[in-house]
Protein backbone atom coordinates (compact mmCIF):
# COMPACT_ATOMS: atom_id res chain seq x y z
CA UNK A 1 0.00 0.00 0.00
CA UNK A 2 1.70 3.20 -1.16
CA UNK A 3 2.09 6.38 0.78
CA UNK A 4 1.01 5.16 4.25
CA UNK A 5 4.08 6.64 5.93
CA UNK A 6 3.76 9.89 3.95
CA UNK A 7 0.22 10.37 5.19
CA UNK A 8 1.12 9.40 8.75
CA UNK A 9 3.97 11.93 8.90
CA UNK A 10 1.55 14.62 7.77
CA UNK A 11 -1.25 13.85 10.28
CA UNK A 12 -0.47 16.86 12.53
CA UNK A 13 -0.71 19.07 9.45
CA UNK A 14 -3.70 17.38 7.86
CA UNK A 15 -5.74 17.06 11.03
CA UNK A 16 -4.64 20.09 13.05
CA UNK A 17 -3.00 22.66 10.76
CA UNK A 18 0.31 22.43 12.59
CA UNK A 19 2.80 24.63 10.77
CA UNK A 20 5.93 26.52 11.69
CA UNK A 21 6.97 30.08 12.39
CA UNK A 22 10.27 31.89 12.30
CA UNK A 23 10.67 33.66 15.60
CA UNK A 24 13.36 35.79 14.01
CA UNK A 25 11.11 37.59 11.53
CA UNK A 26 7.66 36.42 12.67
CA UNK A 27 6.68 34.83 9.35
CA UNK A 28 4.36 31.86 9.67
CA UNK A 29 4.32 28.88 7.34
CA UNK A 30 1.75 26.36 6.37
CA UNK A 31 2.68 23.77 5.32
CA UNK A 32 5.61 23.85 7.70
CA UNK A 33 8.97 24.93 6.36
CA UNK A 34 12.33 23.90 7.77
CA UNK A 35 14.10 26.98 6.36
CA UNK A 36 12.77 30.53 6.57
CA UNK A 37 12.91 31.88 2.99
CA UNK A 38 13.61 35.37 4.34
CA UNK A 39 16.12 34.72 7.11
CA UNK A 40 17.52 31.47 5.71
CA UNK A 41 20.23 30.19 8.05
CA UNK A 42 19.74 32.98 10.59
CA UNK A 43 16.09 32.01 11.02
CA UNK A 44 14.71 30.31 14.14
CA UNK A 45 11.98 27.84 13.20
CA UNK A 46 9.49 26.47 15.73
CA UNK A 47 6.04 24.87 15.68
CA UNK A 48 2.91 27.01 15.21
CA UNK A 49 -0.68 25.87 15.35
CA UNK A 50 -3.13 27.69 13.09
CA UNK A 51 -6.62 28.51 14.33
CA UNK A 52 -8.43 27.18 11.27
CA UNK A 53 -10.07 30.52 10.56
CA UNK A 54 -9.61 32.27 7.24
CA UNK A 55 -11.13 33.90 4.18
CA UNK A 56 -11.51 32.81 0.58
CA UNK A 57 -8.74 34.29 -1.61
CA UNK A 58 -9.78 32.54 -4.83
CA UNK A 59 -12.06 29.67 -5.80
CA UNK A 60 -13.18 27.50 -8.68
CA UNK A 61 -15.70 24.70 -9.16
CA UNK A 62 -14.13 21.46 -10.35
CA UNK A 63 -16.19 19.62 -12.96
CA UNK A 64 -13.48 17.18 -14.06
CA UNK A 65 -12.05 15.68 -10.88
CA UNK A 66 -8.94 13.52 -10.53
CA UNK A 67 -9.07 9.84 -9.54
CA UNK A 68 -10.79 9.29 -6.22
CA UNK A 69 -12.77 12.51 -6.33
CA UNK A 70 -15.13 11.68 -9.19
CA UNK A 71 -18.24 11.20 -7.09
CA UNK A 72 -17.92 14.54 -5.37
CA UNK A 73 -18.24 16.64 -8.50
CA UNK A 74 -18.92 19.38 -8.84
CA UNK A 75 -16.99 20.61 -5.81
CA UNK A 76 -15.59 23.94 -4.78
CA UNK A 77 -11.80 24.20 -4.55
CA UNK A 78 -10.49 27.35 -2.93
CA UNK A 79 -7.30 29.09 -1.93
CA UNK A 80 -7.93 29.95 1.69
CA UNK A 81 -5.98 32.78 3.31
CA UNK A 82 -5.61 31.77 6.95
CA UNK A 83 -6.14 34.59 9.43
CA UNK A 84 -2.49 34.25 10.48
CA UNK A 85 -1.25 34.91 6.94
CA UNK A 86 -0.31 31.80 4.92
CA UNK A 87 -2.55 30.42 2.22
CA UNK A 88 -3.54 26.85 1.48
CA UNK A 89 -5.64 24.92 -1.00
CA UNK A 90 -8.77 23.11 0.15
CA UNK A 91 -12.23 21.93 -0.81
CA UNK A 92 -15.00 24.14 0.54
CA UNK A 93 -17.92 21.98 1.66
CA UNK A 94 -21.45 22.18 3.04
CA UNK A 95 -22.55 25.04 0.81
CA UNK A 96 -24.30 25.71 -2.47
CA UNK A 97 -21.89 26.31 -5.35
CA UNK A 98 -22.84 29.97 -5.78
CA UNK A 99 -22.44 30.84 -2.08
CA UNK A 100 -18.65 31.07 -2.16
CA UNK A 101 -17.18 34.49 -2.94
CA UNK A 102 -13.74 36.07 -2.66
CA UNK A 103 -13.62 37.33 0.92
CA UNK A 104 -16.11 34.81 2.35
CA UNK A 105 -15.16 33.82 5.90
CA UNK A 106 -14.42 30.13 6.36
CA UNK A 107 -13.49 27.73 9.14
CA UNK A 108 -11.83 24.35 9.24
CA UNK A 109 -13.75 21.04 9.38
CA UNK A 110 -12.56 17.42 9.58
CA UNK A 111 -13.52 15.19 6.65
CA UNK A 112 -12.52 12.16 4.64
CA UNK A 113 -10.30 13.23 1.78
CA UNK A 114 -9.84 9.95 -0.09
CA UNK A 115 -9.40 6.25 0.65
CA UNK A 116 -6.98 3.77 -0.95
CA UNK A 117 -9.59 1.58 -2.56
CA UNK A 118 -11.96 -0.40 -0.37
CA UNK A 119 -9.19 -2.24 1.46
CA UNK A 120 -6.64 0.53 2.00
CA UNK A 121 -6.42 3.26 4.61
CA UNK A 122 -8.78 6.21 4.79
CA UNK A 123 -7.02 9.55 4.59
CA UNK A 124 -8.71 12.20 6.69
CA UNK A 125 -7.82 15.87 6.60
CA UNK A 126 -8.94 19.47 6.71
CA UNK A 127 -11.56 21.00 4.50
CA UNK A 128 -13.27 24.31 5.06
CA UNK A 129 -16.86 25.47 5.34
CA UNK A 130 -18.42 28.91 5.17
CA UNK A 131 -18.71 30.58 8.56
CA UNK A 132 -21.84 32.48 7.57
CA UNK A 133 -23.85 30.30 5.22
CA UNK A 134 -27.14 31.67 3.82
Amino acid at each position, binding site marked *: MKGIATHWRLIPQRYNLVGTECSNCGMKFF*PPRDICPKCRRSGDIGEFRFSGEGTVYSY*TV*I*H*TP*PEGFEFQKPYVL*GIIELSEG*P*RLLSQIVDCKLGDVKIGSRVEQVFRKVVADGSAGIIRYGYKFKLKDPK
Partner: protein
Amino acid sequence: MTSRVAIIGTGITEFGELWDESFRSLITKAGTEAINDSRLEGDEIEALYVGSMSPGLFSGQEHVSSLVADHAGLKGVPATRVEAACSSGALALREAYLSIKSGEMDYVIAGGVEKMTDIPSNSATVALMGAGDQEWEAFKGATFPGLYALMATRHMYEYGTTLEQISQVSVKSHENAALNPKAQFRFKVSLEDVMNSTPVADPLRLLHCSPITDGAAAVVLASEEKAREICDNPIWINASSCSTDTIALHDREYVSRTDAATRAAGKAYRRAGIKPQDVDFAEVHDCFSIAEIMAIESLGFCKLGEGGRFTEEGETSLSGSIPINTSGGLKGKGHPVGATGIAQAVEAVAQLRGEAGKRQVEKAKIGLTHNVGGSGGTCVIHILSGDLK
Protein backbone atom coordinates in the same frame (compact mmCIF):
# COMPACT_ATOMS: atom_id res chain seq x y z
CA MET B 1 32.85 32.66 -23.60
CA THR B 2 31.77 35.34 -26.04
CA SER B 3 30.94 33.25 -29.09
CA ARG B 4 27.27 32.75 -29.84
CA VAL B 5 25.08 29.69 -30.26
CA ALA B 6 22.85 29.07 -33.27
CA ILE B 7 20.04 26.74 -34.22
CA ILE B 8 21.00 25.16 -37.53
CA GLY B 9 18.29 22.54 -37.96
CA THR B 10 14.77 21.80 -36.73
CA GLY B 11 12.32 18.91 -36.83
CA ILE B 12 8.79 18.43 -35.56
CA THR B 13 6.22 15.64 -35.84
CA GLU B 14 2.51 16.04 -36.33
CA PHE B 15 0.85 16.76 -32.96
CA GLY B 16 -2.30 14.92 -32.01
CA GLU B 17 -3.72 11.65 -30.72
CA LEU B 18 -1.25 9.48 -32.63
CA TRP B 19 -2.23 5.86 -32.01
CA ASP B 20 0.34 4.52 -34.47
CA GLU B 21 3.25 6.38 -32.91
CA SER B 22 5.19 5.44 -29.82
CA PHE B 23 7.48 7.46 -27.56
CA ARG B 24 10.46 6.09 -29.49
CA SER B 25 9.05 6.58 -32.97
CA LEU B 26 8.05 10.17 -32.21
CA ILE B 27 11.42 11.37 -30.95
CA THR B 28 13.27 9.49 -33.64
CA LYS B 29 11.15 11.14 -36.36
CA ALA B 30 11.68 14.62 -34.95
CA GLY B 31 15.39 14.08 -34.37
CA THR B 32 15.97 12.71 -37.85
CA GLU B 33 14.15 15.63 -39.44
CA ALA B 34 16.26 18.07 -37.41
CA ILE B 35 19.55 16.46 -38.40
CA ASN B 36 18.51 16.33 -42.05
CA ASP B 37 17.56 20.01 -41.86
CA SER B 38 20.95 20.86 -40.35
CA ARG B 39 22.75 19.02 -43.16
CA LEU B 40 24.98 17.30 -40.63
CA GLU B 41 25.80 13.61 -40.94
CA GLY B 42 24.90 12.89 -37.33
CA ASP B 43 28.33 11.77 -36.13
CA GLU B 44 29.15 15.38 -35.35
CA ILE B 45 26.63 15.49 -32.48
CA GLU B 46 28.50 15.60 -29.19
CA ALA B 47 25.63 15.56 -26.71
CA LEU B 48 21.90 15.03 -26.50
CA TYR B 49 19.41 16.69 -24.17
CA VAL B 50 15.86 15.40 -24.13
CA GLY B 51 12.97 17.05 -22.33
CA SER B 52 10.16 14.73 -21.24
CA MET B 53 8.00 15.26 -18.18
CA SER B 54 6.67 11.83 -17.30
CA PRO B 55 7.60 8.91 -19.52
CA GLY B 56 7.55 6.87 -16.33
CA LEU B 57 3.89 7.58 -15.60
CA PHE B 58 2.77 7.68 -19.24
CA SER B 59 4.69 4.61 -20.43
CA GLY B 60 6.43 3.09 -17.42
CA GLN B 61 9.73 4.12 -18.99
CA GLU B 62 12.57 5.94 -17.24
CA HIS B 63 16.18 6.25 -18.36
CA VAL B 64 14.96 7.83 -21.57
CA SER B 65 18.17 9.75 -22.12
CA SER B 66 20.04 6.64 -23.18
CA LEU B 67 16.98 5.15 -24.84
CA VAL B 68 16.63 8.17 -27.11
CA ALA B 69 20.36 8.33 -27.88
CA ASP B 70 20.34 4.70 -28.88
CA HIS B 71 17.24 4.87 -31.05
CA ALA B 72 18.44 8.08 -32.68
CA GLY B 73 21.56 6.29 -33.84
CA LEU B 74 23.64 8.24 -31.34
CA LYS B 75 24.58 5.38 -29.06
CA GLY B 76 27.58 6.38 -26.95
CA VAL B 77 26.85 10.09 -27.04
CA PRO B 78 26.40 11.69 -23.57
CA ALA B 79 22.69 12.03 -23.00
CA THR B 80 20.66 13.83 -20.34
CA ARG B 81 16.95 13.83 -19.68
CA VAL B 82 15.76 17.19 -18.43
CA GLU B 83 12.59 17.56 -16.43
CA ALA B 84 10.81 20.68 -15.21
CA ALA B 85 7.21 19.64 -15.81
CA CYS B 86 5.80 21.43 -18.88
CA SER B 87 8.99 23.47 -19.29
CA SER B 88 11.15 20.37 -19.75
CA GLY B 89 11.57 21.18 -23.45
CA ALA B 90 12.85 24.73 -23.09
CA LEU B 91 15.02 23.70 -20.17
CA ALA B 92 16.57 20.97 -22.36
CA LEU B 93 17.20 23.63 -24.99
CA ARG B 94 18.81 25.81 -22.33
CA GLU B 95 21.09 23.00 -21.18
CA ALA B 96 22.12 22.33 -24.78
CA TYR B 97 22.76 26.06 -25.30
CA LEU B 98 24.88 26.27 -22.12
CA SER B 99 27.00 23.27 -23.11
CA ILE B 100 28.00 25.02 -26.34
CA LYS B 101 28.28 28.47 -24.75
CA SER B 102 30.72 27.03 -22.24
CA GLY B 103 33.05 26.24 -25.08
CA GLU B 104 32.89 22.57 -24.27
CA MET B 105 31.03 21.47 -27.43
CA ASP B 106 30.26 22.49 -31.00
CA TYR B 107 27.22 20.44 -31.98
CA VAL B 108 24.42 19.45 -29.61
CA ILE B 109 20.91 18.24 -30.24
CA ALA B 110 18.00 19.15 -27.98
CA GLY B 111 14.68 17.34 -28.26
CA GLY B 112 11.38 17.16 -26.46
CA VAL B 113 8.83 14.38 -26.54
CA GLU B 114 5.69 13.23 -24.73
CA LYS B 115 3.48 10.23 -25.50
CA MET B 116 0.38 10.89 -23.43
CA THR B 117 -2.37 8.78 -24.95
CA ASP B 118 -1.31 5.30 -23.94
CA ILE B 119 -3.10 5.77 -20.59
CA PRO B 120 -6.69 6.91 -19.97
CA SER B 121 -7.13 10.69 -19.73
CA ASN B 122 -8.15 10.38 -16.08
CA SER B 123 -4.72 8.91 -15.36
CA ALA B 124 -3.02 11.46 -17.60
CA THR B 125 -4.55 14.20 -15.44
CA VAL B 126 -3.05 12.54 -12.36
CA ALA B 127 0.36 12.31 -14.07
CA LEU B 128 0.18 15.99 -14.99
CA MET B 129 -0.64 16.89 -11.39
CA GLY B 130 2.88 15.74 -10.64
CA ALA B 131 3.83 19.26 -11.72
CA GLY B 132 1.90 20.57 -8.76
CA ASP B 133 2.36 20.00 -5.06
CA GLN B 134 1.49 16.37 -4.31
CA GLU B 135 0.89 16.81 -0.63
CA TRP B 136 -0.92 20.14 -0.57
CA GLU B 137 -2.56 20.48 -3.99
CA ALA B 138 -3.04 17.03 -5.56
CA PHE B 139 -4.08 15.48 -2.24
CA LYS B 140 -6.83 18.07 -1.92
CA GLY B 141 -8.44 17.17 -5.26
CA ALA B 142 -6.78 19.85 -7.40
CA THR B 143 -6.25 19.49 -11.14
CA PHE B 144 -4.29 21.75 -13.46
CA PRO B 145 -7.39 23.28 -14.97
CA GLY B 146 -8.47 23.90 -11.37
CA LEU B 147 -5.23 25.69 -10.48
CA TYR B 148 -5.38 27.90 -13.56
CA ALA B 149 -9.06 28.52 -12.87
CA LEU B 150 -8.04 29.83 -9.44
CA MET B 151 -5.66 32.21 -11.23
CA ALA B 152 -8.40 33.25 -13.66
CA THR B 153 -10.84 33.97 -10.81
CA ARG B 154 -8.27 36.25 -9.19
CA HIS B 155 -7.32 37.96 -12.46
CA MET B 156 -10.99 38.69 -13.16
CA TYR B 157 -11.48 39.94 -9.60
CA GLU B 158 -8.38 42.17 -9.52
CA TYR B 159 -8.42 43.55 -13.06
CA GLY B 160 -11.97 43.09 -14.35
CA THR B 161 -10.80 40.69 -17.04
CA THR B 162 -13.85 39.12 -18.67
CA LEU B 163 -14.58 35.59 -19.81
CA GLU B 164 -15.01 36.96 -23.34
CA GLN B 165 -11.46 38.31 -23.29
CA ILE B 166 -10.09 35.01 -21.98
CA SER B 167 -12.09 33.16 -24.66
CA GLN B 168 -10.74 35.42 -27.40
CA VAL B 169 -7.32 33.83 -26.80
CA SER B 170 -8.69 30.44 -27.83
CA VAL B 171 -10.42 31.89 -30.89
CA LYS B 172 -7.10 33.36 -32.06
CA SER B 173 -5.18 30.17 -31.27
CA HIS B 174 -7.51 28.14 -33.44
CA GLU B 175 -7.35 30.69 -36.27
CA ASN B 176 -3.57 30.25 -36.34
CA ALA B 177 -3.64 26.49 -35.82
CA ALA B 178 -5.91 26.18 -38.85
CA LEU B 179 -2.94 27.44 -40.88
CA ASN B 180 -0.42 25.02 -39.30
CA PRO B 181 -0.17 21.64 -41.06
CA LYS B 182 1.33 19.99 -37.97
CA ALA B 183 -1.28 21.26 -35.49
CA GLN B 184 -3.70 19.00 -33.58
CA PHE B 185 -6.77 21.19 -34.20
CA ARG B 186 -6.75 22.58 -37.71
CA PHE B 187 -10.11 24.32 -37.47
CA LYS B 188 -11.50 27.63 -36.29
CA VAL B 189 -13.81 28.10 -33.33
CA SER B 190 -16.15 30.96 -32.58
CA LEU B 191 -16.37 32.95 -29.37
CA GLU B 192 -19.74 31.30 -28.66
CA ASP B 193 -18.22 27.85 -29.21
CA VAL B 194 -15.59 28.63 -26.59
CA MET B 195 -17.89 30.23 -24.04
CA ASN B 196 -20.49 27.47 -24.29
CA SER B 197 -18.11 24.53 -24.24
CA THR B 198 -18.28 21.96 -21.40
CA PRO B 199 -17.36 23.38 -17.97
CA VAL B 200 -14.07 22.02 -16.68
CA ALA B 201 -13.18 24.18 -13.66
CA ASP B 202 -15.12 27.41 -13.34
CA PRO B 203 -14.66 29.77 -15.12
CA LEU B 204 -12.59 27.66 -17.54
CA ARG B 205 -14.31 25.48 -20.08
CA LEU B 206 -13.09 22.75 -22.43
CA LEU B 207 -12.07 25.17 -25.18
CA HIS B 208 -9.97 27.21 -22.75
CA CYS B 209 -7.79 24.18 -22.06
CA SER B 210 -4.93 22.73 -24.07
CA PRO B 211 -5.47 19.08 -24.99
CA ILE B 212 -3.66 15.84 -24.25
CA THR B 213 -1.31 15.30 -27.16
CA ASP B 214 1.40 13.04 -28.53
CA GLY B 215 4.31 14.70 -30.30
CA ALA B 216 8.01 15.45 -30.48
CA ALA B 217 10.31 18.20 -31.72
CA ALA B 218 14.06 18.63 -31.98
CA VAL B 219 16.62 21.33 -32.76
CA VAL B 220 20.29 21.05 -33.62
CA LEU B 221 22.54 23.69 -32.11
CA ALA B 222 26.01 24.70 -33.19
CA SER B 223 28.70 27.04 -31.98
CA GLU B 224 29.09 30.30 -33.93
CA GLU B 225 32.26 29.12 -35.64
CA LYS B 226 30.71 25.90 -36.92
CA ALA B 227 27.34 27.52 -37.71
CA ARG B 228 28.94 30.05 -40.03
CA GLU B 229 30.86 27.24 -41.78
CA ILE B 230 27.95 25.02 -42.66
CA CYS B 231 24.71 26.98 -42.37
CA ASP B 232 23.32 29.62 -44.73
CA ASN B 233 20.76 30.91 -42.32
CA PRO B 234 21.75 30.33 -38.70
CA ILE B 235 19.22 31.52 -36.13
CA TRP B 236 20.98 32.93 -33.07
CA ILE B 237 19.97 32.37 -29.49
CA ASN B 238 20.60 35.84 -28.08
CA ALA B 239 19.45 35.00 -24.59
CA SER B 240 18.46 32.01 -22.51
CA SER B 241 17.07 32.59 -19.05
CA CYS B 242 15.30 30.64 -16.35
CA SER B 243 13.62 31.53 -13.09
CA THR B 244 11.84 29.46 -10.46
CA ASP B 245 9.01 30.09 -8.04
CA THR B 246 7.06 27.97 -5.51
CA ILE B 247 5.44 25.00 -7.18
CA ALA B 248 2.31 25.39 -5.09
CA LEU B 249 0.03 28.13 -6.38
CA HIS B 250 -1.19 29.11 -2.93
CA ASP B 251 2.37 29.77 -1.77
CA ARG B 252 2.85 32.62 -4.24
CA GLU B 253 2.51 36.23 -3.28
CA TYR B 254 0.15 36.83 -6.19
CA VAL B 255 -2.08 34.24 -7.77
CA SER B 256 -2.96 36.54 -10.69
CA ARG B 257 0.53 36.93 -12.10
CA THR B 258 3.49 34.77 -13.01
CA ASP B 259 6.52 36.21 -11.24
CA ALA B 260 8.93 33.53 -12.49
CA ALA B 261 8.11 34.65 -16.03
CA THR B 262 8.59 38.32 -15.17
CA ARG B 263 11.99 37.61 -13.65
CA ALA B 264 13.11 35.35 -16.52
CA ALA B 265 11.93 37.94 -19.04
CA GLY B 266 13.90 40.71 -17.32
CA LYS B 267 17.07 38.63 -17.39
CA ALA B 268 16.55 37.69 -21.05
CA TYR B 269 15.87 41.24 -22.25
CA ARG B 270 18.96 42.51 -20.42
CA ARG B 271 21.10 39.75 -21.88
CA ALA B 272 19.86 40.32 -25.42
CA GLY B 273 20.09 44.07 -24.99
CA ILE B 274 16.50 44.64 -26.10
CA LYS B 275 13.17 45.86 -24.76
CA PRO B 276 9.74 44.16 -25.02
CA GLN B 277 8.69 46.45 -27.85
CA ASP B 278 11.63 45.17 -29.94
CA VAL B 279 10.15 41.67 -30.04
CA ASP B 280 8.32 40.95 -33.30
CA PHE B 281 6.45 37.77 -32.27
CA ALA B 282 6.39 35.31 -29.39
CA GLU B 283 5.47 31.70 -28.69
CA VAL B 284 4.07 31.67 -25.16
CA HIS B 285 2.81 28.97 -22.83
CA ASP B 286 -0.97 29.01 -23.17
CA CYS B 287 -1.70 25.73 -21.39
CA PHE B 288 -4.99 27.47 -20.50
CA SER B 289 -6.17 30.68 -22.20
CA ILE B 290 -5.72 32.70 -19.02
CA ALA B 291 -2.04 31.70 -19.05
CA GLU B 292 -1.48 33.59 -22.30
CA ILE B 293 -3.01 36.72 -20.78
CA MET B 294 -0.71 36.51 -17.76
CA ALA B 295 2.24 35.69 -20.06
CA ILE B 296 1.95 38.80 -22.22
CA GLU B 297 1.73 40.88 -19.03
CA SER B 298 4.85 39.24 -17.55
CA LEU B 299 6.70 39.65 -20.83
CA GLY B 300 5.94 43.38 -20.85
CA PHE B 301 3.98 43.39 -24.11
CA CYS B 302 1.20 45.15 -22.24
CA LYS B 303 0.69 46.49 -18.72
CA LEU B 304 -0.17 44.26 -15.76
CA GLY B 305 -3.89 43.59 -15.78
CA GLU B 306 -4.30 44.74 -19.40
CA GLY B 307 -3.75 41.35 -21.01
CA GLY B 308 -7.45 40.71 -21.56
CA ARG B 309 -8.12 44.06 -23.22
CA PHE B 310 -4.92 43.81 -25.30
CA THR B 311 -6.08 40.45 -26.67
CA GLU B 312 -9.62 41.66 -27.27
CA GLU B 313 -8.27 44.56 -29.34
CA GLY B 314 -6.53 42.08 -31.65
CA GLU B 315 -2.99 43.15 -30.78
CA THR B 316 -1.87 39.51 -30.43
CA SER B 317 -3.39 38.21 -33.66
CA LEU B 318 -1.34 37.50 -36.80
CA SER B 319 -2.02 41.00 -38.03
CA GLY B 320 -1.59 42.66 -34.65
CA SER B 321 1.29 44.61 -33.15
CA ILE B 322 2.80 41.54 -31.45
CA PRO B 323 1.55 38.24 -32.91
CA ILE B 324 1.40 35.65 -30.13
CA ASN B 325 1.44 31.90 -30.83
CA THR B 326 1.39 31.96 -34.61
CA SER B 327 1.75 28.16 -34.38
CA GLY B 328 -1.67 27.94 -32.74
CA GLY B 329 -0.13 27.79 -29.28
CA LEU B 330 -0.61 24.91 -26.90
CA LYS B 331 -4.36 25.21 -27.31
CA GLY B 332 -4.42 25.00 -31.10
CA LYS B 333 -1.41 22.92 -32.00
CA GLY B 334 -1.45 20.65 -28.96
CA HIS B 335 0.63 20.23 -25.82
CA PRO B 336 2.79 17.10 -25.70
CA VAL B 337 4.24 18.34 -22.46
CA GLY B 338 7.98 17.75 -22.81
CA ALA B 339 7.98 18.65 -26.50
CA THR B 340 6.30 22.04 -26.20
CA GLY B 341 9.38 24.07 -25.29
CA ILE B 342 11.27 22.74 -28.30
CA ALA B 343 8.23 23.11 -30.59
CA GLN B 344 8.09 26.79 -29.65
CA ALA B 345 11.71 27.16 -30.78
CA VAL B 346 10.92 25.32 -34.04
CA GLU B 347 8.12 27.83 -34.79
CA ALA B 348 10.35 30.77 -33.90
CA VAL B 349 13.06 29.51 -36.24
CA ALA B 350 10.51 29.05 -39.06
CA GLN B 351 9.30 32.62 -38.61
CA LEU B 352 12.84 34.05 -38.51
CA ARG B 353 13.82 32.09 -41.63
CA GLY B 354 10.72 33.34 -43.45
CA GLU B 355 9.45 29.76 -43.78
CA ALA B 356 6.18 30.05 -41.85
CA GLY B 357 3.94 30.02 -44.94
CA LYS B 358 0.43 31.33 -44.28
CA ARG B 359 1.41 32.08 -40.67
CA GLN B 360 4.36 34.27 -41.60
CA VAL B 361 4.81 37.44 -39.60
CA GLU B 362 6.09 40.18 -41.85
CA LYS B 363 9.62 41.38 -41.16
CA ALA B 364 10.06 38.96 -38.29
CA LYS B 365 13.51 39.76 -36.92
CA ILE B 366 13.39 39.05 -33.21
CA GLY B 367 11.35 36.25 -31.64
CA LEU B 368 10.80 35.13 -28.06
CA THR B 369 9.78 31.76 -26.62
CA HIS B 370 8.24 31.46 -23.16
CA ASN B 371 7.78 27.99 -21.58
CA VAL B 372 6.30 27.47 -18.12
CA GLY B 373 6.39 24.51 -15.75
CA GLY B 374 3.27 23.65 -13.74
CA SER B 375 1.32 26.63 -12.49
CA GLY B 376 4.42 28.83 -12.76
CA GLY B 377 7.10 27.06 -10.73
CA THR B 378 9.55 27.37 -13.60
CA CYS B 379 9.79 29.72 -16.55
CA VAL B 380 12.36 29.42 -19.32
CA ILE B 381 12.70 32.14 -21.95
CA HIS B 382 14.74 32.29 -25.11
CA ILE B 383 15.25 35.26 -27.42
CA LEU B 384 16.20 34.43 -31.00
CA SER B 385 17.03 36.34 -34.13
CA GLY B 386 18.44 35.85 -37.61
CA ASP B 387 21.53 37.77 -38.63
CA LEU B 388 20.43 41.29 -37.73
CA LYS B 389 21.47 43.88 -40.24
